[in-house]
Each structure stands twice: as structure tokens, then as C-alpha cells.
């Protein structure tokens, strides 16, 4: 494919990333994604409840890891998606990057909240408390606040084009800051709790645990992809609605 005239033959990326094109090809992707997600969850739940033994130390509470670890992974993966989209917004001003950012933020908040919830459910039987000021839990909570702040910022703006670029700046600042927050929280924990009583990575991960863990992580990742795709499509439709409504108002104004 020789790109002699870029206007007549835009590159493959430009073509698939054009909002109109995106709506065209992504339509055929939604149903297959839903199907794979459902199958992955079926297999994952089968493994996590029926085909895996209880841990010799943690007993059946190990089964909570199969929802906790995937959601915790998604809470960070989602920020990575927002970070990449933020760069797309700021550097190329790509409308799809704006849409991707906006669609990902509530998902990130939901999965982070879920990671915290399952973590505290896991913490009660193993640590004896729902909430522990543990490094991971605390920095996950701060991550949740950052997600919620970003959502609040999205909602504060009327002009969505401007909002996307402003939110992108905040997302980048957050991305630089999250490692610092993580480090400071860990430092703070060692200051106040010199003995590391609570170690999650203590027992070696057995193969029988690894299989359900991987399948459930895959299932949750697929769920994220499906929801993200559908939300992106909805967001593009919403933008179309806005321009159509403007056109309608203009026509009504012209007729009057």
C-alpha cells in the first residue's frame, strides 16, 4: 500500500479510527465479544468453585482471590487505557481518544470500588478486619478518589471537546503522581508498622489456584473491553445527538 496521496488513501489507522468508520466495524464486534465474555465467565466460575481445591492455609477464602485479583488488575489497567487515550487526545487531538477516555473513567471507578470491596471481604476472615491501613488498600482507595475526581471534572464541563483535553492533562498528572503516592503510602506504612504482618504474597501460588485466577482475569478483561466498546459507541452516538439537536434548533429558529 503506497501512500502517494494521503488524502485519497488515508492510512489504515486513520480509516479504522474515524468515528464513522469505527461505528461501522465495531458494530460487528459487540456480539462476539459478549459471547466470549459470557463463556469466559462460565469457565472461570466453574474453575473457581468446582474445579479447584481449597487452599491448605487460607481454606475456601482463596476463592475470593478469583474476583479480587482481576478487579485489582483492571483498576490499574483502566488507568493505563485512560493514560494512553489522554496522550492521543493531547498529541493528535483524536476524537476517538476523547471518547475512549470518557468511556473508561466510570469503568475504572467501578472496578476499583469492586477491588476494594472484595479486598475488604477477603480481609475480614484472613486479617480479622474489613479495613486495614495497608499499603495496597490505601493506595487503591486514593486511586478511586482520583477516578471519581476525573469523573467529577468531566461532568463539570459543558464543552466536551475542551473537557477531553483538560481531563487528559489531569490524567497525565495523575499518572505521574500515582507511583509517588504508592511510594509514599508504602513508606508511611513501614514507618508505622515496622513488622510486615500482612503479606499477601506469602504463600507460593499453586497451579490449582493459577488456572482459575488466569481465566477469571481474562474474563474480567474481556468484560472491560466489551463495556468499553459499547460505551464508546454510545458516546459517539451522544455526540451525533448533540449535533443533530443543534441542527434542529437552528432549523426551528430559521423557520420562526
Amino acid at each position: 500500500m503506497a501512500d502517494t496521496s494521503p488524502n485519497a488513501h488515508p492510512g489504515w489507522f486513520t480509516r479504522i479510527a474515524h468515528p464513522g468508520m469505527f461505528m461501522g466495524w465495531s458494530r460487528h464486534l459487540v456480539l462476539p465479544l459478549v459471547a466470549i465474555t459470557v463463556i469466559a465467565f462460565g469457565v472461570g466460575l466453574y474453575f473457581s468453585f468446582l474445579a479447584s481445591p481449597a487452599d491448605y492455609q487460607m481454606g475456601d477464602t482463596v476463592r475470593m482471590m478469583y474476583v479480587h485479583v482481576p478487579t485489582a488488575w483492571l483498576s490499574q489497567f483502566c488507568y493505563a487505557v485512560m493514560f494512553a487515550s489522554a496522550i492521543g487526545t493531547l498529541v493528535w487531538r483524536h476524537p476517538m481518544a476523547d471518547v475512549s477516555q470518557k468511556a473508561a473513567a466510570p469503568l475504572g471507578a467501578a472496578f476499583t470500588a469492586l477491588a476494594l470491596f472484595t479486598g475488604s471481604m477477603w480481609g475480614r476472615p484472613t486479617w480479622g478486619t474489613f479495613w486495614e491501613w495497608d499499603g495496597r488498600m490505601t493506595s487503591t482507595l486514593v486511586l478511586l478518589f482520583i477516578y471519581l475526581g476525573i469523573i467529577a471534572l468531566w461532568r463539570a464541563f459543558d464543552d466536551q471537546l475542551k473537557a477531553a483535553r483538560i481531563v487528559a492533562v489531569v490524567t497525565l498528572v495523575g499518572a505521574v503522581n500515582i507511583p509517588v503516592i504508592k511510594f509514599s503510602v508504602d513508606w508511611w506504612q513501614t514507618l508505622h508498622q515496622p513488622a510486615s504482618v500482612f503479606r499477601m504474597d506469602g504463600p507460593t501460588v499453586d497451579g490449582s489456584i493459577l488456572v482459575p485466577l488466569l481465566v477469571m482475569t481474562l474474563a474480567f478483561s474481556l468484560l472491560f473491553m466489551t463495556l468499553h466498546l459499547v460505551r464508546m459507541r454510545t458516546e459517539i452516538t451522544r455526540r451525533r445527538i448533540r449535533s443533530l439537536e443543534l441542527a434542529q434548533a437552528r432549523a426551528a429558529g430559521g423557520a420562526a
Partner: protein
Amino acid sequence: MRAFTAIIGRDLRLGLRQGGDLLTLVLFFVIVGVLLPFAVGPDRPLLAQLAPAIIWVAALLAQLLSHDRLFRSDFEDGSLALFRHASLSLDGIVFAKLIAHWLLTGLPLVVAMPVLALVLGLTADNFWLAVLTLLAGTPALTAFGAIGAAVTVGLKRGGLVAPVLVLPLSLPVLIFGTGAFDPTRVEASTQALLLLCALSLVSMALAPFAAALALKISGE
């Protein structure tokens, strides 16, 4: 460089002309610090133990309160649009404004520290530590606050969004700021102080770029 100092001078003059703002800020800082003992109870040993936390929370809130006016008046009267055609880049101008803002909102807190130290029963050692940590840490608060202020400058009803964005980001400042107060562990204390300095330097160096970018976007 002339333009840089001119901006600092301009902002200082503007800030000092409305001396009321400066006084209100200091007053707010002291009142928050004095109010907390009423919530805790007049237990002197306990208050002395909580003092670093009280001072830092009061400083955080006082700084948070002052950020809104950092760019808003310049944005609304069009000065920011003019700045974009200045010889100095917007990043440099924002940096100058941050320095002026810190002199107007960070330094007064340090000056007001003795009052709080007295009522909270700080030891002499802890008093000097508090002065040191406030000096080392408030520039980072100014830097994070500037990003929050720049991001919400175009919003008519941005009120609570900026604090909600800024507070989680300021968490490391709070941790290292209060972490420095530990007479039993000199090593951790110096570490915290050094980390606080590093945080302030890096955030003051990087924040102007982020804030200037947000201001440019808001001004379009």
C-alpha cells in the same frame, strides 16, 4: 529574566494590595488549628502528639482555600490571553506566578506557626521541625494546587472540583510532612524531610508545564 521578576512583583503587589486576603488566610490556618483541640478535648499530651497532624491538615486546607484566585482573576480580565503574547513563555509566567503565590500563601503559614505551636504545646524541637517541614512542603502544595486551579479556571461552577482533584494528589506531601516528626527515629525523620524537599522541587519544576497547558486549553 526581567519579565520573570516583573510578573512576581506584579503578583506580589496585587496580593498585598488586598491585604485582607493574606490576613484571612493566616486567620483560617490558625482557626482550624485552634478548632481541632475543641473536637479532641483539652488533653495536652494527646494534643502535643497530634500537633504535627493538626498543623499539616490546617496548612493543607488553608492552601486549598487560596488556590482559586491563583489564575481566576487573570483569566477573567484577559491578562492570561495577553500573557500568551509575552516574551516569556506561558510556562515561565506560570512558574513566576507560583513563586509569588507561595510567597503570599505558603510563607505566611510559617510565620503564623508560633501561635499554633504555643496552643498545641509543641516542644522546641518539634516547633523547628514544623517550620522546616512547612517551608519544605508548602511549595509542593502550591504546585499541586496550581494544577487544580488551572484545570478548573474556565468553569463557572468549578467550586468543589479542584479540591477533590488536588487533595488525593497532595497525599504524599501530608505523609512526608507529618512523617518527619518522630523524635525516636532520626533516620526516618531526615528521610521524610529530604523526600519532602524532593517532592517540592520536582512538583514545582513540572507543575508549570501542566498548568500552562491547561490554561492554554481553557483559553481557547
